[in-house]
């Protein structure tokens, strides 16, 4: 009886905040999503009806029937995975260097990544296009990959730097001591220790690359057409929101699975990390 009441007390205490947060978020986040989801299955929905006047799958048929949707989806996934991996490969060591090493120009270089997010693309288009044309990268997979890669640099460097700085140096020293070279220490100790943050960075990179359209369009058109580029053309100035809604909802399912997976990795790690040290 004692145990039970304790458990209940604990549950009550924890939930107060949790329940409030969960409710607020449910309303704030779910409501717009729900509206989108409903639209995806709606043919007619007019004010002031709470429910659509007419449900239907017409827009699903129309969307899914298009061959380019599936091609674009596969292409996008391939592209995004490539870019994310490449970005991790070149950025994480660089982030480590920024966090832990001293070299000439460090701060300036570090700041320079800001430029990729802070300057509007339109000012750069001509120059970038010029560079890519010369290299015959226009309208090729690797051209798009390259431009998107540049777009991920800031995320993949700025965020991990904070993570690396939080890693306890003594753990790295201990690994050096048992014979691990700097690279191995990075891979086996520093990276896993910084994992929750890095994971967040990778997730953000993946998603933002997936939904990136400007670079993909500028460099990719006409041969390389990614999912969001296709989507934009479905959605922009389109009378019917349903196409966009359908495409969104289509992407939510994999996103949601990825998210649940992410949550596992992140929380368990953060949990373990928070304990000792």
């Amino acid at each position: 009886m004692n145990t039970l009441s304790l458990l209940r007390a604990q549950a009550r205490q924890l939930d107060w905040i949790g329940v409030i947060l969960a409710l607020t978020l449910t309303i704030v986040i779910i409501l717009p999503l729900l509206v989108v989801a409903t639209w995806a299955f709606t043919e007619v929905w007019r004010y002031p009806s709470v429910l659509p006047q007419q449900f239907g799958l017409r827009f699903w048929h129309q969307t899914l029937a298009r061959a380019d949707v599936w091609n674009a989806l596969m292409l996008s996934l391939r592209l995004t995975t490539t870019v994310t991996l490449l970005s991790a490969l070149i950025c994480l060591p660089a982030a480590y260097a920024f966090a832990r090493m001293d070299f000439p120009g460090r701060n300036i270089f570090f700041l320079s990544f800001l430029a990729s997010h802070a300057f509007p693309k339109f000012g750069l288009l001509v120059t970038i296009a010029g560079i890519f044309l010369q290299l015959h990268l226009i309208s090729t997979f690797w051209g798009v990959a390259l431009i998107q890669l540049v777009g991920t640099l800031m995320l993949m460097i700025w965020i991990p730097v904070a993570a690396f700085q939080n890693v306890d140096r003594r753990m790295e020293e201990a690994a050096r001591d048992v014979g691990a070279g700097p690279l191995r220490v990075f891979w086996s100790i520093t990276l896993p220790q910084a994992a929750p943050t890095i994971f967040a960075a990778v997730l953000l990179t993946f998603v933002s690359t997936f939904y990136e359209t400007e670079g993909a369009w500028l460099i990719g058109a006409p041969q390389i057409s990614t999912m969001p580029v296709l989507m934009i053309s479905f959605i922009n100035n389109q009378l019917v929101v349903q196409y966009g809604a359908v495409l969104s909802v289509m992407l939510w399912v994999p996103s949601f699975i990825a998210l649940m997976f992410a949550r596992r990795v992140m929380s368990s790690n953060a949990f373990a990390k928070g304990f000792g040290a």
Partner: protein
Amino acid sequence: MAQLTIQNLHKSFASTTAVDSVNLHVEDGELICLLGPSGSGKSTILRMIGGFEHPTSGAILIDGEDVTRLPPERRPTGMMFQSHALWSHMTVFGNIAFGLKLRRLPKAEIRDKVESALELVGLGGYGTRMTSQLSGGQQQRVALARSLVLEPKILLLDEPFASLDQHLRERLREEVRDIQQRLGITTLFVTHGQDEALAMADRIAVLRDGRIEQIAPADVIYREPQTEFVAGFIGTMNLIKSEVRNGRFHHADLGLPMPLHDGEATLAIRPEDVVLTATRNEPSAVVTRFTDFGSYHLVDVQLADGHRIKAMTAPASRWRKGDRVAVLVSSYAAFRNQHLAYTSTDTHELIKETEHV
């Protein structure tokens, strides 16, 4: 299996000099204990040998080769850190196995080695735990196992047993000593347990403010401390400041013979060299405290001049606070200018002192 030579090592941090011209030569398979007060630079010396701090000046040689500028992973040293520095994202097994994996040992061999290391430190079956699920002492033992399992040429242990109970500590120090001797691992060992130092070390280096005060085998350090600091630091020592007059220490209760020319001097007597006998004389020394340590008793005695000294007595003895005692000394030494100036001949005959000169 390696000789370690430290030449003129010096390390300054922004605000402090942590290590100050340390010279040390450690022979193949020798075990040296670094003893010294908190903050005297012990960890810093180990960290420099391991390669984690860069000396401000000086050199470190292993088997005659200068390693001062080598990175840690290229030095044949294995270190156990004072802060344990366990990898919190790995299991206990993973922590111990990491170094072995780097050496590309076959899986089965790694498992065997890790398991026997865990058995050694009394953590058999804890392999799958995360390090955060261990108690403080268990973490320390994992750190110890991690440094031992690689059988490095030079082992650096920074307070390896600080959070262990006496029995475990005794068992482990014997185990470590065994391994160290069997494999001939040259070892530097930081400890605050003097027992540990006395029991394990081939030689003890006593540090003070970043300098080595004396380096010698345990019994020499205990019985022939070269400086007042060493005398006072190792074991318990009654130190009484006064002066020598006419070949005698000038003191009301302890006017012992001291063949030095006149001048200030410090008398040093071990508690076990103090013998108490009951007396009724007045004024006399008085027992002010009696502590039972099981295997012996420690008696605090206030001399007639107000000085307090400690005496060690057999478990059978029973003193009570306020008892009047006569103080006899069986052996003593004298220091002048911090350095040893005189030692009484090591006789077992009691040198009887009158309570009044």
